[in-house]
């Protein structure tokens, strides 16, 4: 048994793969038209649940094996791709950070899948929900277990897409799609940071593997730039300032998805990333100080906003981000173990709370507590908290509006100059009146028409095709000369002369 457990680590790649397979199978069923009606629901749900449970059991077995065989550490399985000295691996880093968090996440995932089956019964997007949920479970396990930055990025993006799809779950409502877009775009800012850091890691370190990255002897300045990209990614994913507004909008999705994404798991992904990078962060006290500051500010901000919320989900989400802010503070102070424990406990607790949110009105008969008196007394602070410090509007005014204006200008430029220069289909002019189908538009088209005009003229003039072409005239001219010569030669006197000339030459 104990010997068998040693090999179980070799199967860790199944943990993210199984939910992905479940998503693929369900997706295939929907594509084949098998995904409608009550009868189709149990299979979809059971597939997702089975995959989640199998992942959980596998992780538990691995945890068990740690008991006897120690931490597996960094394991490389396959080379995903390799070009020159670049190499992307499928590798996993199983240590005291990733295994507990991953196990807890698998447990939460399995429970949420079970909960959703009943919650979403006879919803229009039942199958869609389970496909996306499985996709998310695969992605988040990829983030947690990844042994290198690339695999983490892959999982990170899968989570981002899944989050986008579930916020826009009720796509018939414009509000839901708008919020989905908002959340997605904000997250892309973080993704850009992640990608930037990975690019630098490949460039400076030559590898994306975590151990290689931790052991790299980079100058402090370079290291700071490298880590800052990761930090931006973490801030965006964990909804710290200034990225906080997206998470309040992200609650449009069905409750189970809100629970697992924003209550329990996804919101902690940023914290996890920083915990993972702890060996790098240790060298950079100034970055840690920055994290401390941001965490503290976020905590204060969400605390104030949370005090004035009137609906249960918003109150919960601000409370969540408050706790996450505290985790950032802990990381900033260097208390990573505390942050890890805080993460796990908070995730478990928040899942339960979020899943309970729809029943909150039934459970609590009392009116919610009013905001404290000192806040109510301070008119200005109260308004600011109610308006969430206008971060939302600030973002729109400072970023979205100028971007839109630039886009309008560029579009105008395109319409009035670039399109004309390149040419557009359907707007061409006929090159020759008798060939209406041969059309040209734009600079390239005009050039083409001009050159081909020239060539056609050469073709018509020079070659034997047209009557009176140059070549034909020359030939006729030469023919006349030859004919004259021949006529002359036929006359006896010239014939004799030619014969005599021949004789002279021979002699």
């Amino acid at each position, binding site marked *: 048994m104990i010997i068998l457990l040693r090999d179980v680590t070799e199967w860790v790649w199944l943990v993210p793969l199984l939910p992905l397979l479940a998503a693929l199978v369900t997706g295939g069923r929907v594509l084949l038209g098998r995904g409608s009606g009550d009868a189709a629901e149990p299979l979809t749900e059971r597939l997702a649940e089975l995959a989640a449970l199998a992942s959980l059991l596998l992780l538990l077995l691995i945890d068990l094996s740690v008991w006897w065989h120690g931490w597996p550490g960094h394991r490389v399985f396959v080379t995903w791709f390799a070009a020159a000295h670049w190499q992307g691996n499928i590798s996993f880093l199983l240590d005291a950070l990733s295994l507990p968090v991953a196990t807890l996440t698998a447990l939460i995932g399995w429970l949420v899948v079970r909960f959703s089956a009943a919650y979403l019964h006879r919803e229009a997007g039942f199958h869609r929900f389970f496909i996306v949920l499985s996709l998310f479970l695969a992605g988040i396990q990829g983030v947690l277990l990844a042994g290198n930055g690339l695999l983490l990025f892959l999982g990170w993006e899968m989570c981002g897409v899944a989050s986008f799809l579930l916020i826009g779950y009720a796509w018939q409502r414009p509000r839901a799609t708008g919020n989905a877009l908002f959340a997605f775009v904000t997250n892309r800012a973080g993704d850009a940071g992640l990608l930037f850091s990975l690019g630098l890691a490949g460039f400076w370190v030559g590898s994306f593997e975590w151990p290689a990255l931790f052991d790299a002897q980079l100058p402090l300045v370079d290291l700071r730039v490298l880590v800052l990209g990761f930090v931006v990614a973490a801030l965006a994913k964990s909804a710290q300032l200034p990225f906080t507004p997206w998470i309040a909008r992200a609650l449009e999705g069905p409750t189970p998805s809100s629970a697992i994404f924003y209550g329990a798991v996804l919101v902690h992904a940023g914290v996890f990333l920083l915990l993972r990078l702890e060996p790098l962060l240790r060298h950079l006290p100034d970055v840690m100080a920055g994290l401390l500051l941001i965490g503290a500010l976020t905590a204060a901000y969400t605390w104030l906003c949370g005090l004035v919320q009137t609906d249960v989900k918003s109150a919960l989400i601000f409370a969540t981000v408050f706790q996450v802010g505290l985790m950032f503070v802990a990381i900033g102070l260097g208390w990573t173990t505390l942050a890890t424990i805080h993460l796990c406990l908070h995730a478990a607790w928040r899942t339960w709370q979020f899943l309970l949110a729809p029943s909150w009105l039934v459970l609590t008969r009392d009116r919610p507590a009013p905001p404290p008196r000192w806040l109510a007394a301070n008119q200005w602070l109260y308004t600011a908290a109610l308006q969430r410090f206008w971060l939302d509007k600030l973002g729109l005014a400072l970023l979205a509006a100028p971007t839109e204006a630039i886009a309008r200008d560029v579009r105008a430029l395109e319409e009035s100059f670039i399109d004309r220069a390149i040419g557009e289909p359907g707007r061409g002019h006929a*090159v*020759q009146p008798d*060939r*209406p*189908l*041969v059309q040209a538009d734009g600079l390239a088209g005009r050039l*083409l028409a001009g*050159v*081909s005009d020239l*060539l*056609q003229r050469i*073709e018509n003039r*020079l*070659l*034997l*095709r047209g009557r009176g072409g140059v*070549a034909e005239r020359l030939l006729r001219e030469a023919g006349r000369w030859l004919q004259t010569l021949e006529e002359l030669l036929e006359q006896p006197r010239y014939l004799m002369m030619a014969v005599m000339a021949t004789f002279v030459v021979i002699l």
Partner: protein
Amino acid sequence: MLKLLVFMPVFGALLLAVFPVRRMQLLWRLALFCALASVLLSALLVARFVPAGEAVQMFESRAWNARLGSHFALGIDGISLAMVVLTAILTLVAVLVSRQMDKGARLYFVLLMLLQSAMFGVFTARDWSLFYVFWEATLLPLFFMIDRLGGENRQRAALNFFLYTLGGSVFMLVALLFLYDAAPGHSFAMPDMAEGGRGLPLNMQLLIFAGLFIGFAVKMPVVPLHGWLPLAHVEAPSPVSILLSGVLLKMGAYGLIRAAETLPGAFLAVQDWLAVLALLSLLYGALLAWRQQDLKAMVAYSSISHMGVVLLGIAALNPAGLNGAVLQMVAHGLAAALLFLVVGLLYQRTHSRDLADYGGLLGRAPRFAFFIAFGLLAAIGLPASAGFIAELHVLIGALQRWGLWVICLGVAMLVGAAYGLRVIGHLYRPAPAGCEIRDMTRTETTAAGLLAAGILLLGIWPAPLLTLVGGSTARIAALFAGG
């Protein structure tokens, strides 16, 4: 074996000439039988050919005129074998599509068989005098076919074609005689002449090469000498167009490769000029093709452009370029044949070659529309078509030699895509009211399908053809490796 290949069509022609039937269908069956026999024979040749073996295989030689030093020598290497197979297949296609001939069927089939014999002769001859004889022998059947069976301007087109090519081959003959004079032992055999040619001073070589080049360039055609082609292609009956563009043009390129073997010094000296001519042909052909609304003229001009690719590949004189040139010869043979086939059949039905009359063809005659689109895409060189592999090889070969000048090739491809897609787009337009087009019959679809399958096969799995050709091209490239 090769003798059988060359002379079997002649027997076929005799049989067709005296066969006492009046019904067209029986004649057609007989011609089909002959063409199939040729295909089988060429397949047998492929099976017996060893790509890694000697340079020239199945060589047989017999003194023809001992006093003059000419031989009746036949033999094949990888390049000629590829051309032989192409000839056999395209002749079969030409027979297949001429099931419904209006008149002159007997004459047509007889001439077709004679033409096939002469083409086989050109590709298998290993003696320059024999080569020249077969070269000229292709002219006569073609002249009569265009003159008797062509379109409204057929007389002018036939005469034009005849004079141009004859004019070219006169230069070739003179050059060959010069070379004969220089060859040791006064022999016309290709190896002997090559030996003599390599020993000549450069000026002499250049002069001889110029003569040979004019002969081949007219046939290929290279741009200033292409005057016969648009008219002949447009006026010829469509099976003849298939052979003209599919095989006859390749004779020029094939001869040029043989000339490169014979006069390497001269070839090396004019290499850059050949590339200039090739790029000129490419752009000239593409631009003029772009201007045409007459589909057949468009395909004819695009042939000039595509043969420019062949010339560019040959001029690069490295294995990649030469391989690309031979591949392009095959690829263009198949693609141009397919296009001429479809356009010819459409002309038979509508008596119009104007693109404007083919609007909405997709709804009226889907098989026609499919094969036009397929042929055009193959001619553009879309990946998974044989043209892609060929153009890629030529591009690589030319890039090694001339660097960024090959951008011209890219421009020509772009223009090619422009006119190709214009036609394809037009097939989707709403149809003009009131005219029905009969779709392709089963025989015609078989012929077109054969070509399309060949294009796809070579595009997806070019390795067999590359192995077949590779040995011979490597041998030629090795002649220039020092230079």
